[in-house]
C-alpha cells in the first residue's frame, strides 16, 4: 500500500513520455534527487541531474541484465581478491542495481543486503530497470549510517556507493562512520568505497579511510575518474601486493564469462597518491566540509 503513490507517479510520468517500453526519457523529482531515466533500445540509464548536467548513477542492459554496463561496477569485484568468498554483503546505495544481478547469479547462496535512502530510486529500479529483489537481495529504505548503527550483523563485503548527483552526504565520509563500518566487517571482511579521483574530496577521503583501515588497495577505473578503494581492518596478512592475491582464474565463475574479466580488474590496481593524501585532512563528524571539497567534478559521465 505504501508503494501506491510511487507507482501512481511512475504511471503518470509514463503517460507523459512517447511510449513506455520503447525509447523514452522520463524525469522524476523525488524527495532527495532529480532523476532522469532514459531507455535507448535495451539500455536503461538512471541519471541524477545537477547544475545543468547529469551524472550517470547506474545502467542496465535489459537484453543481458547480468552485464556490468557501468565500468566501476566491474571494479567493485576487486574485493574478490581480498575476500574470495562473499557470503554476506551490505551495499549502501542502490542506484539501478547494476552490480546486484551478476552478484546474485554468481553467488546464489549469498545475501546481498542493500540500503537506499530514496524510496523513489527503489521504485524506479524495480519498474524501469526491472530489478526484482529476492529473499537474498533485500532492500531497506533508510539512511545508510542509521542502518549500520542499528544492524548488528557482520558483513564480508561492505560497499559504500551513496551519491546524490554530485553530493555525498557528509556523515557517510567521516572517520567515525568508517569505524562503525569496520566494526560491522567480519574478521577478513573488506570495506569497499566508490571514490572520485577528480574531486578535491578524494585525498581527504583516502586519508580518512587510512586512519581507520590499516591496509588499503586502490583500483583505478579505466578513464572514468572513479577509484574503488578496498580496505581491511587487519595488518596481517599483507593484502597490498597483487602478486600474492589468488589467481583471477581461480576466482572466476561461469556467470562471469564475457561479463567480468578479473585479470583486467587486477590490472587496475594503482598506487596510493601518498604525497597528495598527506595534504588531505581526516574528516570527522566534527569537521566534514564535504560540500566544499567538490565531491564529484565528473561522476561517471561515461560508461
Amino acid at each position, binding site marked *: 500500500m505504501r508503494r501506491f503513490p510511487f507507482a501512481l507517479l511512475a504511471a503518470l510520468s509514463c503517460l507523459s513520455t512517447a511510449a513506455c517500453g520503447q525509447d523514452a526519457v522520463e524525469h522524476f523529482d523525488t524527495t532527495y534527487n532529480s532523476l532522469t531515466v532514459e531507455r535507448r533500445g535495451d539500455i536503461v540509464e538512471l541519471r541524477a541531474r545537477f547544475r545543468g548536467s547529469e551524472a550517470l548513477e547506474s545502467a542496465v542492459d535489459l537484453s543481458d541484465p547480468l552485464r556490468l554496463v557501468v565500468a566501476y561496477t566491474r571494479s567493485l569485484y576487486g574485493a574478490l581478491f581480498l575476500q574470495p568468498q562473499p557470503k554476506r554483503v551490505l551495499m549502501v546505495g542502490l542506484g539501478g542495481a547494476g552490480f546486484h544481478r551478476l552478484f546474485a547469479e554468481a553467488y546464489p547462496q549469498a545475501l546481498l543486503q542493500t540500503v537506499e535512502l530514496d524510496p523513489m530510486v527503489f521504485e524506479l529500479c524495480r519498474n524501469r530497470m526491472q530489478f526484482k529483489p529476492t529473499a537474498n537481495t533485500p532492500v531497506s529504505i533508510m539512511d545508510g549510517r542509521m542502518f549500520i548503527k542499528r544492524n548488528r550483523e557482520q558483513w564480508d563485503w561492505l560497499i559504500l556507493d551513496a551519491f546524490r548527483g554530485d553530493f555525498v552526504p557528509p556523515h557517510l565520509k567521516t572517520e567515525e562512520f568508517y569505524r562503525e563500518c569496520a566494526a560491522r566487517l567480519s574478521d577478513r571482511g573488506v570495506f569497499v568505497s566508490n571514490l572520485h579521483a577528480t574531486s578535491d574530496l578524494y585525498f581527504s577521503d583516502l586519508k580518512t579511510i587510512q586512519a581507520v583501515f590499516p591496509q588499503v588497495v586502490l583500483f583505478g577505473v579505466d578513464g572514468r575518474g572513479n577509484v574503488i578503494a578496498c580496505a581491511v581492518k587487519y595488518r596481517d596478512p599483507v593484502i597490498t601486493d597483487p602478486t600474492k592475491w589468488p589467481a583471477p582464474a581461480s576466482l572466476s565463475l561461469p556467470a562471469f564469462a564475457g561479463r567480468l574479466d578479473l585479470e583486467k580488474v587486477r590490472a587496475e590496481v594503482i598506487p596510493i597518491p601518498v604525497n597528495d593524501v598527506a595534504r588531505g585532512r581526516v574528516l570527522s563528524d*566534527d569537521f566534514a566540509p564535504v560540500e566544499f571539497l567538490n565531491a564529484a567534478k565528473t561522476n561517471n559521465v561515461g560508461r
Partner: protein
Amino acid sequence: MTLFAFYLVVIILGILSMGFQLLASRLLNPHFGSSIIVWAWLISTFLAAFSLGSMLGGWISNLAPAARRRGQLIGAAVAVLTLGLAAVGGRAALAWIEVRFEEMSVALLVACVGIFFLPVTALSTFGPQCVQYLAGRGTPPGKASGVVYGVSTLGNIAGVMLTAFVLIPHFRVSTLLYLWLVVALVSLTGLVRLLRTSSSL
C-alpha cells in the same frame, strides 16, 4: 552610538539563531542522517522556539520595570547556559538519545527539544523587547516592529550564509558551538545593559 550598538546586537542575535540551525544539522547528521525527516523536525523545532520566544518576550516587555529586568536576566542566562550545555554535552546527549529511543521521530523530537529548543526560545524573547526599546525612544510601535524584525532577519540571512560558506568549511562544529557561546554571552550582556537604560526611562 547607542543605536548603532543596538542594531549591531539585533543583527548578532539574528546570526546566532539561524547559524545555530546549521550547526544543529551537523550535530544531528552523524546520529540520525540527513534525510528530510531530520530537517522537518529541526526546522519545526526552531520555528516553535521562535514562536514561543516571541510570545514570552512580548509578555516580558509589558511587565513592570523590576519584573521586566528579572525576565531579561533570566532569558539571557537561559540562552547562555543552554548554549553552553549544547557545546559541552550536545554530542554525548545525542549519542545517548540515539540508543535510548528506537523510533527515529521520537528520538529526533527529544534531541531537538532537549538540545536546541531552549537556547533559541531564550534568544527569541529579546525580539519584542528590542521593539519595546525603540518604541520607548519615540519610534512609532509599528515602525519599531518593522525595523527590528527587518534588521533581525538580515542577521538571520547573514547567519546562514556565514555559517554555511565560511565557518563550517574552516572550523570544527565543536569550536563553533563555543564561539556561539562566547558571542551570545557578550552580545546579551550588551543588550541587557541597553535595555536597562530603557527600563529606567
